[in-house]
Structure formats: structure tokens, C-alpha cells
């Protein structure tokens, strides 16, 4: 009887992946080419027009300023301060954002009561509050951590709320029919369901956290890459100033791709992780 229907053929144990496609290879060629072209144009413009090094230093001198920075333990001290403020602030934003997000998405009255305040805190130009944080929390690391956390909090909160609200009703029916406990529903359904959204919030949040830490460093104290940047500006060391910007950019890249790696690790099943 069971032979009446041909069951679908089992697939080969290891589906064969095509060799690296041309489209995947392309950025490895175009990106360096565009960077080289940009640097060449920059160099050409500076030398041809005899631009003052205070205005726009040549790429060569920016490069040597950056290499010098890499050999300076003071610069690494600043880098570490910024990394610390960013990650610490981000961690707070993550814990509070996800926790509050799940609560808001689940409890109707909590959402209706908190919503005006959430919108208010979202539309406040938070950077304008930085001087206030400095007054309250001093010139130390605390004020930077708080600025980073406040900036990173929002995208994480809103994406978590969206994620928990987008859980498929059919998936909920499955868990109900299986008599799952409240905790099992959270751990096995709500969390994995909301994770792609939370990671999107984290991707935006981590970049905002760096901005928050750096802006905090502009205004208070003399530690961190933000303070270093201001110091270089005041010293008219424009090449070193560029070097700090490059340093910050690389830092941003590392954090951003770190979240991307986390995404591929945590949600390999999701289309956002690519294949």
C-alpha cells in the first residue's frame, strides 16, 4: 500500500555548493580599486594645487601619522577608553532595550502608558543632553557610557517590540497545542522569532553607541578617541586628526561586522544571514 506513492527522493547528504560565484568575488576587486583611485586623486589634488597641510594633508602624511599612532601606547589607551565606553553603554542598551521591549510588546497597558514617553525620548536631540550628563556624572567614563547607552537604546527597543509583535499566530497555536509553559514559549518561540529584529536593532545600536561615546569624549575629560581628536585639532595637527578619524572608522567597521558575525552565528536559518 505504501508503495502506491513514491516518496520524495532523499537528497544527497551534502548538497554541493557552487564554486565561489563571480558576484561574490566582485567586491574583493572593486573595493580596493576604488580606495586606491580615491587616494591617488587625493594625492594628486594636494600636490598639484599645493594645498596647505593644515587644510588637507597628503595621504602619505596621514598614513605615517596613523602608523605613528599605532606605535603610541597613549593612543591605544584612548582607543581602549572609547571601546570600553561603547561596549559598556551598548550592553546596558541591549539589556534594558530587549527587556523593556519584550514587556511592552506583551503587556498592552504598559505600551499605552509608556508610549508618549518613549516617543518623547526618541525625538529629543539626545546629543544636546550630553553637557547635562557631564554635569551630572562628571568628566569620567560614566557620562560616556551613559551617552552611548542612551543613543543605542532606541533602535534596540523599537526593533524588539516589533519582533515580539510579529510572532506568527500559527506558531503560537503550535506551542499552545503542545501545552508549552510560559517560559518554554519565551525561550523556544518568542526569543528565536524576535532575534532577527533584535539583531537589526543591535546593528544600528552599535554604530550609535560609538557616536555616543565619541561625542561624550568631545565635551568632557581628556580620555578617549574623541578627546584625542579635539587635542589634535587644537594642536593644528591635521594629519593626526585624519589618522584618528581613520582609526574611529576602522573601529566602527569591526563592531558592525562583529554584529554581522553574531547574526550568522545566531540565526543561520534567517534569510538576512545569506547562504
Amino acid at each position: 500500500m505504501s508503495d502506491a506513492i513514491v516518496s520524495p527522493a532523499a537528497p544527497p547528504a551534502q548538497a554541493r555548493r557552487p564554486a565561489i560565484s563571480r558576484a561574490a568575488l566582485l567586491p574583493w576587486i572593486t573595493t580596493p580599486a576604488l580606495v586606491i583611485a580615491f587616494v591617488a586623486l587625493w594625492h594628486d589634488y594636494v600636490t598639484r594645487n599645493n594645498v596647505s597641510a593644515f587644510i588637507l594633508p597628503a595621504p602619505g602624511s596621514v598614513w605615517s601619522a596613523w602608523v605613528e599612532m599605532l606605535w603610541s601606547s597613549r593612543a591605544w589607551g584612548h582607543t581602549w577608553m572609547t571601546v570600553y565606553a561603547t561596549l559598556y553603554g551598548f550592553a546596558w542598551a541591549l539589556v534594558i532595550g530587549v527587556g523593556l521591549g519584550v514587556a511592552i510588546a506583551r503587556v498592552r497597558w504598559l505600551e499605552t502608558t509608556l508610549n508618549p514617553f518613549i516617543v518623547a525620548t526618541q525625538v529629543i536631540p539626545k546629543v544636546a543632553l550630553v553637557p547635562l550628563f557631564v554635569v551630572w556624572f562628571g568628566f569620567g567614563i560614566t557620562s560616556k557610557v551613559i551617552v552611548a547607552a542612551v543613543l543605542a537604546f532606541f533602535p534596540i527597543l523599537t526593533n524588539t517590540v516589533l519582533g515580539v509583535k510579529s510572532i506568527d499566530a500559527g506558531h503560537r497555536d503550535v506551542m499552545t497545542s503542545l501545552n508549552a509553559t510560559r517560559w518554554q514559549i519565551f525561550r523556544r518561540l518568542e526569543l528565536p522569532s524576535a532575534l532577527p529584529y533584535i539583531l537589526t536593532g543591535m546593528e544600528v545600536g552599535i554604530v550609535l553607541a560609538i557616536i555616543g561615546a565619541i561625542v561624550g569624549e568631545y565635551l568632557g575629560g581628556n580620555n578617549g578617541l574623541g578627546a584625542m581628536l579635539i587635542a589634535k585639532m587644537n594642536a593644528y595637527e591635521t594629519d593626526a586628526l585624519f589618522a584618528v578619524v581613520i582609526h574611529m572608522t576602522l573601529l566602527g567597521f569591526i563592531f558592525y561586522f562583529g554584529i554581522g558575525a553574531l547574526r550568522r552565528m545566531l540565526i543561520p536559518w534567517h534569510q538576512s544571514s545569506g547562504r
Partner: protein
Amino acid sequence: MSSVAREITRPDAAPAAIAMAGIEKWYGTGLSQVHALARTDLSVPQGELLVLLGASGCGKTTLLRMIGGLIEPTGGEMRIEGRPLWRDGRRQDEAVAELGMVFQEANLFPWLTIEGNIALPLELKGVGRSERLARARELTRLVGIGGFEARWPKELSGGMRQRAAIARALSYDPDILLMDEPFGALDAMTRDAMNLELQRIWMETGKTIVLVTHSITEAVFLADRIVLLSPRPGRIDTIVDVPIPRPRTLDAQSLPVFQDVARRLRHRLNEIS
């Protein structure tokens, strides 16, 4: 043999798989109240394949979800193998443990592989990993998707996903399988194949199955008994026996008895809707 022993071994001494008395459902409150299902009595003996048939809005899905404990009835009593499903507004674990549900959508979790999905109910019940996976392997073979254990749901076709959903519902070996238009989203040919497969699985496992559909052909092909529901409010209109021997093949559709039952159902459906 003593009379007591005879009493116990008599087949009809076993409680019905599903027994409902005066079950009804109202949605909403006040003037906007909707009577989804009028007081209904129905008993499903163990091992029967019962089909709930009706047009949309006749309350057949509401009835099925009440059997499954997803919706609490407004009135009446629902018993699963003799045990009440609800007591003081709380679903009773022993009764729910004997119910497996399959929905119109497979509702597989995209973050779990096929075997992870099939083993999910066992995981929730605290069964160990190796036992879970062995059971999942056994079930993928039963439902005809052996070899696909490690795939993601998105890599499977609609029919195969629905097979996995059936395997998931069978994983913890409930006595009763409740299916809400399980093949409604599939194309006609896949649907025929799945009807044959369901008959085979039913005959191999001996489960009690209650299946909701709006397809007369599917109902007559699968059912021992068809419950025809009429709308506004939903209520049982007629109950029809389908005296076609098993196993039925797709050719059964050309039998006079098949066509006769189908014609009666079609006429009655036209009259009541």
C-alpha cells in the same frame, strides 16, 4: 470468564476518543455577539476517521479548535477519552497530552531543522536528545520524508512541510490527531497524494483522526463518517457514513457509492448555504 472480565474486554466499554455534550461557542459580548456554534453533541469512537465538512463560516474550525483545547467553549462539556478537557477554566494536561494538531499551514519553526521541528514536542516534555532524534528519524520515514532530517523548512516543498507537521503532531504519540484543512494550501495533485498518505498513516498507526475540510471529494475519500455542518449559527446538519472498503485508492472516486455519497452531500450543502 467472569462477567467483570467480559465487561472490561467488551470493545464498547472503552470511552469514546472524543465526547461532547451541549458544546457551544459565542464570540464577543453584548449586541455584537456572534453565535459561532449552537449546542452540539457528538461522539467519536476510538480509531475513527471523522471529517467535519461545511462551507466557510459554519463553525467547523471553531469546533475543531475547541476539541483541541485552543478555544474554551462557552458552554457544554468536552471529554477526551473520558476525561474532561476543561476544569474550572483550566485545560487539563492529561487530556491535552492525547491530542495532536495539524494546521492549514505547516507552522514549522524556521530556526529549527526538520528533525528539530519534529522533535520539538518531545523537547518540551523533557525527553533526552538521542531518544528525540531517533524518534524524529523514525517519523520522517513514516511520513515519507526520510533523508530530509537536517534540512531547513524553507528548503522543502509545501507538501513535504505538511508531512513534517504531521510527524511533529505524531511525535509524542497522542491517540487523537486533529487536522484543520491540512491540505487546503496544496495543489490538487499533491493533495491527492497526501490524502492517500494520510489514509496509510492512519491505517498504520490506528489513531483517531478528526479532519476539517470544505472539499467534498476529500471528505468522501478519507472519512468513515462525515459530519455536515450548516452555518449561522454553526450546527450539525447531517451525519453520513461512507461504506467504502479500505484501503481506498484514488480510483474509488469512480465507484457508484462514492459518487452517490458525494452527490447527496453536494445537494444538502446547496440547500443549507
